[in-house]
């Protein structure tokens, strides 16, 4: 993959933004309302949606991998890497496919991504624990992903609208 300086810079800024959003998320403890493992807003998914639409799958994937690895280093928690990677990659794969449909808006794409993110995290929990016990949490996580997915879709939509008249979104 060949990146122009502008693309590389944008990737770097978006990676930093995704890391900052992951950190910011700790201050909105959704887990206090719904105390289940893996329940969170998924604010960093806004960056994935944005990167996917504006930069394409390749660069969105680079940003995701950089965010997951740096996030694990900053948190000093290597076991969290498996969770963020499997969740992030599942969400990325789902959104990359769904965003190709002309019939879906950014809402449908990001709801699908949020649901896939939770499936990926449950899969990571299955790998970690060595049995299928974590699947018990999936129905509630999927229900929550409808709301968190719609929220990230809304924010990404606002972002696209706000940037419509800038040169940032032009290739």
């Amino acid at each position, binding site marked *: 993959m060949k990146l122009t300086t502008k693309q590389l810079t944008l990737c770097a800024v978006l990676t930093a933004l995704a890391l900052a959003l992951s950190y910011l998320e700790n201050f909105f403890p959704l*887990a206090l309302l719904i*105390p*289940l*493992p893996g329940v969170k807003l998924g604010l960093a998914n806004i960056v994935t949606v944005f990167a*996917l*639409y504006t*930069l*394409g*799958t*390749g660069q969105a994937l680079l940003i995701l991998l950089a965010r997951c690895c740096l996030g694990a280093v900053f948190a000093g928690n290597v076991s969290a890497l498996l969770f963020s990677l499997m969740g992030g990659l599942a969400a990325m794969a789902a959104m990359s496919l*769904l*965003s*190709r*449909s*002309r*019939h*879906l*808006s*950014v*809402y*449908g*794409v990001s*709801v*699908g991504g949020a*649901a896939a993110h939770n499936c990926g995290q449950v899969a990571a*929990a299955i790998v*970690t*624990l*060595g*049995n*299928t*016990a*974590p*699947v*018990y*949490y*999936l*129905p*509630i996580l*999927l*229900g929550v*992903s*409808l709301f968190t997915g719609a929220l990230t879709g809304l924010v990404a*939509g606002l972002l*696209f*609208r706000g940037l419509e008249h800038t040169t940032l979104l032009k*290739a």
Partner: protein
Amino acid sequence: MPMKRSRALRPKPADALVVLAVVLAAAALGVYFWGGSSSGSLQAVISQNGQVTETVNLSRLTEKEERVITSNGYTLHLVLTSTEVWMESSTCPNQDCVHTGKISRPGQSIVCLPARVSVMLTDGNASGVDAVLG
């Protein structure tokens, strides 16, 4: 050159299909975990780090039993009765296992990720012995 993506910013009718798919998946799993009958004999399978450490036949319990599980640096306090299992307390940071509450049907589980502990209820009858005669 990235694939051309529709950048529809308002919800479209087809979005409902994605929502419907997620709702159906959640509902199907929900029916599986909460819809079945809770009668029959239950057993609790306790695992640490992917290894089954103990299997408790709940229907044979006559009174409340407790287990103190030490795993991965955390101490968990599990309570088992003939019909229900719950995590009474845990020293783990997120307390998800305690918040999971009581489980009482086959297929349901309590997971403590930091401690790498899971407790899964299974149908005691399905796994072999129904009754021991003579």
